[in-house]
Every structure is written in C-alpha cells, then in structure tokens.
C-alpha cells in the first residue's frame, strides 16, 4: 500500500507558503494597489498637497489625442518586435541545432546580446545608425535613402524595432534550442523515412511539437515589449520624432518621472496593467487551445 505523509492542521502548510506569499504581496499586490490609489489623486511632486479627484485622471487621459496615438504605436511596435524576434530566433535555433563544426561556439555567441543592458543596446544602435556620425548610415545614404531617424518617424521606428528585436533574439533562441533538442529524433526520422523533405518535416512535425515553447515565448515577448523596452526608447529616440515612437510604457515614464504628474502616470500604469492582464488572458484562453502539449 502507498504510504502517505500526513500533515495535521494548517500551521505547517501556511508556514511553507508564507515566503512565497510575502514576496508576491510585497512586490506585486502592494505596489499595484498603491498605483491604483495614486491614480485617483492629484498630487504635487513632493506630496505636500494631495486631493482625491475620483476618475478625473482617467478622463483627462482619454481626452488626449497623444494617448490614443501611443496605443497605436504600442500595437505596431509590439507586433513587429514579437514577430521578428520569434522568427529570427527560430531560424537561428533550427540552424544551430544541426550538427555543424563549432556549433557550441555559435550557440554561445548567439546568447551574448542578452547580457547587454537595454539602454546600452539602444546607444549602440543609435551610434551605428546616427544620421551623420553612424557607420551604417553612410551605406544607407549611399543607396539613396535620406536616412534621418531624428525627423522621420518610420526611420525611428525601424531603428527601435531593430534594437529591441536584436536584444530579445538571444532569449528566444535559448528556449527554441532547448525545445528543439527535446523533440524525439525518432519522430523526425520516421517522417524522413516516409519521404518528407526538410521543409515539410519542419512545418508538419517540428513546428507543431514546438508550439508550447512558441506560445510561452509569445506571451513573454509581448510582456517584454510592453514593459522592458522603455530603456531602449529613452536612449534611441526619447519618444520622438514628434512623439511618434512614444509607447504606453514610455509615456508612463515620461509623464511621471520627467513630468512629475504622478496621478496621470499612475492612471496610465493601471490601464497598462489591465491591457496586459487582458492580453495574457486572451492568449491563454484562445491561443493555448491550439497548442499541442
């Protein structure tokens, strides 16, 4: 007969989950509730005078055309970065997974960019593509493009997508590589014996079997673009030109930290929190159904 450990009473289980609970409460629920509370206040930067204003911060937010523009920018930016960083990482991972000489070295090199801080990654790309000082802007200009991310919003967005994608590829690569190595060789060999070519093997066998990893990465990448890219935006474009690369999270930072508008900034972060929760819920509800574990 199976032996079962019995724990009598609630004390020990509670004690065991207490550290985890404490961390969640202190580092998530407490700041989140503070943000919600702050979003109903109007306060000066020093906190000398604060006044409860109800939903006024939210109302004035939705009266700003800039806020809607930031939403659109965020949607474009996040889909581009998520798509390109997943696609490039998958391509690199499938290639690195093959038995090639020096494969180990390739793998190591591909992981390196992840260790670079976002702001530094931003500065690196900024200098490479600086309209006049950049080493890469010269060849671009030579082929007849008037490269100027300082005034041209499309150029600025391209530059941001490039640097944010570059930064995230390593992370995705690592997970894809692990995912690929977990696929049993026998399945692929069986497909090969049945006469499936490499491309067909990839789309009908490998890609579906990789879908849990892809799904997980999609969620992580969306969250990454929503929250972690503001260092890059700050360094590369500062939200410009003409506010056209200001995403939701960058606006939170700009209004709150640079502008000292704590109430408005808190209201924005609450909305951002709701958006991300909703996005994640949708992904789990609908996309996950198609995932084969």
């Amino acid at each position: 007969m199976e032996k079962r450990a019995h724990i009598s009473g609630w004390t020990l289980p509670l004690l065991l989950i207490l550290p985890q609970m404490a961390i969640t409460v202190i580092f998530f629920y407490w700041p989140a509730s503070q943000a919600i509370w702050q979003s109903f206040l109007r306060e000066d930067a020093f906190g000398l005078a604060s006044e409860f204003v109800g939903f006024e911060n939210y109302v004035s937010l939705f009266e700003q055309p800039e806020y809607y523009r930031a939403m659109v920018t965020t949607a474009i930016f996040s889909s581009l970065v998520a798509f390109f960083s997943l696609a490039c990482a998958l391509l690199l991972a499938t290639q690195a997974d093959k038995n090639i000489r020096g494969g180990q070295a390739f793998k190591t090199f591909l992981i390196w960019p992840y260790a670079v801080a976002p702001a530094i990654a931003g500065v690196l790309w900024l200098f490479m593509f600086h309209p006049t000082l950049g080493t890469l802007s010269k060849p671009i200009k030579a082929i007849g493009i008037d490269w100027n991310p300082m005034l041209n919003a499309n150029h600025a967005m391209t530059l941001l997508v490039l640097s944010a994608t570059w930064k995230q590829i390593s992370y995705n690569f690592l997970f894809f590589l692990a995912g690929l190595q977990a696929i049993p060789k026998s399945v692929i060999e069986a497909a090969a014996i049945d006469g499936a070519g490499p491309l067909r093997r990839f789309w009908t066998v490998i890609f579906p079997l990789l879908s849990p990893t892809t799904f997980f990465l999609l969620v992580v990448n969306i969250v990454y673009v929503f929250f972690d890219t503001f260092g890059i935006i700050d360094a590369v474009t500062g939200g410009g030109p003409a506010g056209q690369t200001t995403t939701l999270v960058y606006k939170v930072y700009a209004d709150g930290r640079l502008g000292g508008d704590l109430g408005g900034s808190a209201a924005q972060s609450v909305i951002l929190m709701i958006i991300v929760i909703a996005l994640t819920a949708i992904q789990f509800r609908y996309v996950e159904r198609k995932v084969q574990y």
Partner: protein
Amino acid sequence: MMKKSLLGALALGLATSTSAFAQTELQWWHAMTGANNDVVNKLAEEFNASQKDYKVVVSYKGQYADTLNAGIAAFRAGNAPHILQVFEVGTATMMGARGAIKPVQEMMKEAGEKFDPQAYLPAITGYYSTAKGEMLSMPFNSSSMVMWINKDELKKAGVAEIPKTWPQVFDAAKKLKAAGHDTCGFSNAWASWANVEQFSAWHNIPMATKANGLDGFDTEMKFNSPQHVKHLQNLVDMQKDKTYDYSGRDSKSEGRFTSGECAIFLTSSGFYGNVKANAKFDWANAPMPYYPDIQGAPQNSIIGGASLWVMGGKKADEYKGVAKFFTFLSDTDRQAKLHQESGYLPITKAAYEKTKASGFYEKNPALQTALIELTNKEPTENSRGLRFGNMVQIRDVISEEIEAALAGQKPAKDALDTAVTRSNQILRQFERTVR
C-alpha cells in the same frame, strides 16, 4: 582615479575620526560628471579644510532629472539632503513646493550671515528669485546659449565676417552648403531652448503672460506669435535642402560642430571645454543671431544650468553651516577662479569685474560671450527668466511640435498653436497641484 578617491575618502575618514568630534554633516546631492564633478569635490574639500564645525558630504545622484527625483523621493521619505542641485527648468517645481524648501535669502538672514542680493549678477539670480526679488536658490553652474563658429570653414566658403543677424546666418549657411557642407549649413542643439526660450528673450517677445510665469502660476503661453512662426517657418524651409539641419532636443549632437560637419552651431556656452579639447580647427563663438526687423532686438539672453536649493525641515545649526558654505562659494576670488578654470559664469558682479580687470577676456574672448549676452540690456519682463511648472514636459511638447513642423507634417503655425494649447494644459494641471 577610483583608487585615488577611495584613498581620499579613507584619509578623510581617519582625519575626521581623530580631530573633530562634534562636526555637523551637510549632505549635498549633485548631478555633475567629469571635470565638473572634480570641481564639486574640490569645493567641498576646500570648505571642509577651511573650518572645523561643518563637513559637506557630496554625492552624485545621476543626471539632472534623476537628481531632482532622488531629492523628491528622499523628501517624501523624510530624509532629504541639505543641498540639492536642481536644473533651471526644475525651478518652478521647487518653488511650488514651499513647504519642502528653505529660501536662500531667508536662510542667510536667519543664520546671521552677511548677504547682499545686490552683489550677484541680476541676469543670473533673476531666474532664481521671486517677483519681489527675494533669492530662492543659489546659482551654481550657469551658462547661456551662444553661436559656435568654425572660422576655417567660413573662410573657405567665402564668408568674410562672423554673421550677426539671422539673415546673415542664412546667407552664410547657403554659401557653406555650396562649398560642400551639403548635410548641414547650420544647426542648433536644445531645440526648445534655442528656438523658443532664448529666441523670445533675445527678441524681447513674451514667451508667456505674467512675465513668463515669474509673476504667477496662472501664466499662459504665447509663443505662437507671428515672429515665432516666421522663425520656425524659415527653419522649415531650409530643412528641406539641409541648409538648416535639425540636431535634436538635447546636446547629444554637439559633435556635429567639433567634427567639422556643421560650421555654425548654436548651443550652450558650457560647450567651451569640449570645443577646446576636440576642435581641430580655428574656432570662435559669438552672440546669438537676431532679426534686425524686430524692434528692440537683441535684448538679453537667459541662463541655463543649475542652482543649489536648500531643503526645508532641517535644524537651525545645520542651516548655519549651509549659510557659511554659500558665503564661501560666493567669495570673489573663488568665483573668479572657478569661472576662469571651469568656464561656468561667475555669479557675483565683483568676480566678473575682477576677471575683466585682469585682462583674462582678451586672451579668452570665448568665455565672455555669454556674459555679454546676459548683460546686453537691463532685463525686461520678457527676458528676466522663465518659470513654468512641469517645464521638462513642456519642453518635450515644444520639441515634438517643432519636429512635426520640420518633418513637414504640419505648417509652422499649426505646430506652434498646438504646442501652446498642449503646454497650457500642462500649466493648468500644475497650477491645480500647487494651490
């Protein structure tokens, strides 16, 4: 470097632990890097060595905005520093927080320190004083905007004299472009500071009502005047073929001057050290250009840089120490030396006169240009300074709209109208929080 400062700190620690026992520590938070950081450290060291009762302890808190935020956060947590360095655009934020600060003039009086507001250069202290002339903070590093000139390139392009007016600058830029500067005839850093803030003061046009906000927080923006629109329109027209080329909202692109790309470049007089070290050509600087058809121009320029704010809620004895430190800073010899070595503007009249008398400017005319601009005429209510709440945000709004106009998304007039409307919303928001 690291080792040296560590040793220094150690030595300082040893010295204090053996000699003085009742020393009062005064915290000074600042945002200075590089050579300017050394200046801060040296000043503190000299002050600490000059007397026994007080010890100024300096800490670097990041860039200007970070330092201000660190100060605000510390105040909210109840442990603000005694002295906080705040950039000029943070002035209204500090002033609005009356309960958080100690006005410098009041502190000097209470501490019984000798203090004469008349001894300071009005063009500098005006920015940091109330409408009644009460000095609120102590100017520290001040600069103004000047026009930097690459004399070699001007000569090559056949421009005989350094341009004085905007039409002359445009003319010179066209010649420069024809002579091979096809990516940049002229340019400027600090989009909003140059084309709106300094432009208004230099031409004696109001940027906003209520003496640009100095007379009250209920100020309203007015920088969409025909003159402002005309200037922006000129830039827009020349941006098309790069006779003018935009260089961004901050000073990141100043390298375009030192690299030789832009031969005419408007930016801070604080650019001096960089030019001196990196420009491999014959250079000079000159006052900002003006439109001769605007009456009264040129007026006087306004300052940029930062000042030292004293935080509220400290003990009387601590304020006494801060007051002593400010007297130490204002000393004529020290100010003159600081000005000549670092390129900061002197804050007292005596220090300026002393430097003038010593013949220093004959050998270093580049260091006097900003002072000539600032003292060009008696300041009017359009040129005494600016005081706008949430100015950091307003600057971004102005830069955004300038960018939109330069990119051809909207006409210059629309861009400035929108910038005014959006800035006014920010001002109203601020007005409500300081009530």
